[in-house]
């Protein structure tokens, strides 16, 4: 009922949940010369959406469904599914940090059993998509809305970071994001075809280049972003 508004709030980069400090690999990609301008950025975003974006969206959708009838043991299992799908330790850390901050923030916005039980089940911080799905459930979203918000933020964070790091024309970058609309719908669709209780068959697309960027980023001396 209130799902549309909640989805917009959750997808807004101004949601005060620590997201502004994460570049989704864009900072390291800029440093090593993999992103130098709008064309590279467009390819980076498309690739990220088709891999990490789909996985994130599927986990968020599953978490949103679970949030309707939460149980601590089930949260731990879904969180383990997320863990298994993020192969870079640096990305796992970044994901848990963002998840912890998202739960901290959204528990105050949408007090709920879904978020309380997730916080109790994974006290050091659930993975970000799991937290996002739980928050979406708490806010009254459907799984598809959770998936859309997750897929959307998986590309807006690196796009914004690239604007800051390279001084790209922000209007042009927003056009790139607008061009991703069909791909975003596809990602959300792919994320939602999974049947409940069959988490092992959730998408598990690998993105080795993103994994390597995340690991390199952690070892780079001068960093503006956490990830």
């Amino acid at each position, binding site marked *: 009922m209130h799902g549309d508004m909640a989805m917009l709030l959750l997808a807004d980069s101004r*949601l*005060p949940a620590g997201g*502004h*400090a994460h570049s989704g690999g864009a900072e390291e990609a800029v440093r090593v010369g993999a992103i130098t301008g709008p064309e590279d950025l467009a390819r980076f975003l498309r690739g990220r959406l088709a891999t990490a974006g789909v996985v994130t969206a599927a986990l968020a959708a599953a978490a949103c469904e679970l949030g309707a009838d939460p149980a601590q043991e089930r949260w731990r299992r879904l969180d383990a599914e997320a863990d298994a799908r993020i192969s870079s330790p640096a990305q796992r850390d970044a994901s848990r940090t963002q998840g912890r901050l998202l739960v901290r923030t959204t528990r105050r916005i949408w007090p709920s059993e879904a978020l309380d039980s997730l916080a109790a089940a994974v006290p050091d911080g659930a993975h970000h998509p799991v937290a996002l799905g739980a928050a979406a459930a708490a806010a009254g979203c459907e799984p598809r809305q959770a998936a859309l918000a997750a897929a959307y933020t998986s590309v807006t964070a690196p796009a914004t*970071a690239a604007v800051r790091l390279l001084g790209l024309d922000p209007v042009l970058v927003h056009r790139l994001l607008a061009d991703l609309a069909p791909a975003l719908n596809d990602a959300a669709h792919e994320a939602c075809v999974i049947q409940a209780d069959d988490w092992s068959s959730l998408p598990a697309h690998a993105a080795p280049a993103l994994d390597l960027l995340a690991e390199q980023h952690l070892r780079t001396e001068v960093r*503006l972003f956490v990830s």
Partner: protein
Amino acid sequence: MSANHDDHHQAPDGHGRALRLGIGGPVGSGKTALVAALCRSLGPSMRLGVVTNDIYTTEDADFLRRAGVIDADRILAVQTGCCPHTAIRDDIAANLDAVETLEERFGPLDLVIVESGGDNLTATFSRGLADRQIFVLDVSGGDKVPRKGGPGVTAADLLVVNKTDLAPMVGADLTVMSRDAAKVRDGKPVLFTSIREDKGAHSVAEWVVGIVDAWHHQHAHTV
């Protein structure tokens, strides 16, 4: 927008936790030096924690750790993704997380200092993060800065003007700075320091002791 926290009664969860003191100001004004000085002066009598907001990696945290003024574990560094003001004003989640982590690990604490990344004159702390805040300027930025105002200069609970030892060299008139600051700050305190000469920043430390005592009095530990 006001950084004056006279309405701190509204601040959530004030009971049983440390006073949170924000220290902000432009790049190079001496924020980290002030944090180190306060740790030197207050460390023997207070249980402290420090959160730094670095522009690059953990520069400020590393400086404090090397200075040896506080147990290295009691310093946590937050990264700000190109936007130091966002992390202390618009999206304080990472800073709150760091503050509460320190309180969980080492609490109860008397004072948690949150040092902002160097920013411009408009950067102030959210009242959701800091109960009180200090804004640090230095004389080499020019003696017109207090007159220009901005939320940091006008509304901080304490304005510190640092590097007074450099005033003759940069042609800064401290009388002008003092007069202009008084005019825009509506009676709130201003202190002039030279942390290079006074390694404990004693006048500022004394002010901090006052606000910590008042905080304890008001929010007596119930645990």
